[in-house]
């Protein structure tokens, strides 16, 4: 796998001094699906805009397919498809014309067979001669995707593709993303739905206040998310953990009034049954048991809070 999008020390300061991106660096591998998670105003859209040419970086470099997005914008932008967050469409236009327009605009010659297959994939084919204004919100969003795909991009940016979209369309969208991935298209999507990142992404990036806090393999994050803690309150305090329990991942807390057991719910065995037996064998009485799960959301919230002074 090779790097297809390279963001190097990019800073974006808007007129008026707002720093939307702070020395941001990011590498996106060809063929992967990267989800950028972050609260509103975190800089997700600004990051996408600077890569796609809607906004000029104040400093730093961005390359797409090895082409600088400023000095070699033609080669870079040919590779990119962008689905914006807002439904920006001309209401009086016909679906087929607006999709044809997009293909031409990106320098490609007319190819109606390809456009037909794109529209069919998006269940838009029977709407091809409808005016945009006659379409439902979900259909309009599909038109935006069709426009972005019309010039066969290698990298597709989806800015909040499922914001305000019903469950069915969201599932459709995920299925579409999966098909595109099979065709080798690299996909970067922004979202603030954690389940969405979980459902479709290979890697997850967390961004807040113009900084990328982490970019990690989804599996690693999920295994972190799968970690659970069990707090065992004891009837009597203990000075130290008995040797017979040394094989368990136990921590003594509250001056020995309780023990915390860390385990993985996604592991083959949680070890809970044997731990309880062994606790009894060691002569410890149990007052109460609580379990506590650290979710991706917790990780997200913790990270975002840590970054906030």
């Amino acid at each position, binding site marked *: 796998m090779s790097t297809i999008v390279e963001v190097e020390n990019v800073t974006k300061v808007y007129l008026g001094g707002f720093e939307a991106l702070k020395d941001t660096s990011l590498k996106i591998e060809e063929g992967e699906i990267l989800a950028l998670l972050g609260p509103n105003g975190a800089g997700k859209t600004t990051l996408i805009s600077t890569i796609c040419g809607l906004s000029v970086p104040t400093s730093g470099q961005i390359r797409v397919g090895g082409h600088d997005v400023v000095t070699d914008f033609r080669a870079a932008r040919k590779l990119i498809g962008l689905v914006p967050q807002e439904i920006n469409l001309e209401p009086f236009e016909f679906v087929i014309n607006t999709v044809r327009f997009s293909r*031409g605009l*990106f*320098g490609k010659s007319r190819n109606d067979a390809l456009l037909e297959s794109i529209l069919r994939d998006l269940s838009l084919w029977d709407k091809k001669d409808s005016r945009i204004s006659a379409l439902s919100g979900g259909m309009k969003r599909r038109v935006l995707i069709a426009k972005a795909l019309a010039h066969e991009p290698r990298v597709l940016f989806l800015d909040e593709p499922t914001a305000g979209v019903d469950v069915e369309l969201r599932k459709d969208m995920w299925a579409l993303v999966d098909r595109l991935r099979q065709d080798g298209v690299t996909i970067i999507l922004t979202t603030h739905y954690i389940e969405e990142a979980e459902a479709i992404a290979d890697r997850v990036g967390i961004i807040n206040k113009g900084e990328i806090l982490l970019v990690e393999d989804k599996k690693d994050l999920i295994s972190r998310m799968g970690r659970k803690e069990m707090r065992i309150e004891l009837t009597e305090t203990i000075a130290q953990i008995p040797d017979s329990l040394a094989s368990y991942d136990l921590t003594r807390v509250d001056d020995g009034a309780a023990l915390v057991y860390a385990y993985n719910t996604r592991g083959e065995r949680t070890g809970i049954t044997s731990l309880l037996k062994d606790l009894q064998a060691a002569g410890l009485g149990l007052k109460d048991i609580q379990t506590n799960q650290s979710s991706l959301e917790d990780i997200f919230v913790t990270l975002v809070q840590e970054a906030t002074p």
Partner: protein
Amino acid sequence: MNVTDMNWNGIRAIYRFEMARFFRSIIQSIVSPVLSTSLYFVVFGAAIGSRIDEVEGVSYGAFIVPGLIMLSVLTQSLQNASFGIYFPKFIGTIYEILSAPISSLEIVIGYVGAAATKAMLIGSIILGTSFFFVDISIQHPFWMLAFLMLTCVSFSLMGFIIGIWAKSFEQLNLVPLLVVTPLVFLGGSFYSITMLPPIWQTISLFNPVLYLVSGFRWSFFGTSDVPVVASLIAITAFTALGLAIVWWIFRTGYRLKA
């Protein structure tokens, strides 16, 4: 940059898209200029013109034809071009243009080319209409077309600039209304400036539209208020100024990019 490397498909896409907008409202596009021109002929040509014998050896009805065409062509160029680029800004579809592998020059060719074509079409329709009302012959057809085309292009460029500058529909209509309409009416569209008092003749010489109307009228009748060369220089300078401003707009991203 090589001509073959240019994004011709992109230019064509913009041009077609804009022309489709024109043909979608074809009735409105044609009926409105034909109707207003006919009214001008009735009011100025027949009612008032019957009391004016001739201007510079041409019947008054024929004399106003070049001015009438210019009036419509200027207004149409400005309106079409300013709306063409303002509308995508207004509804947000500009994102696609800005993210496409298309240079500023190509964008301008697409939008300004379409707006100028529409204005040319309307100019021709008005010329055609005028044949029903008055006898006219065109002495320099080549120069007539050249003046018409240069005017369409330069005012479409100006319209493009207004469309980028405008932040609201009100501003979009402001410049044509407050600046261009007075300039056209005071630019000798319906009279020869020799009919004005000397002080107004001098003031008129600062009106760029005078040079366009004068040159255009010369191509019809062989007479003009200012030398034809001055008209050519004026329109070339005007086009160059428009190009320079457009170049600056795209260089700085003025009102287009954050």
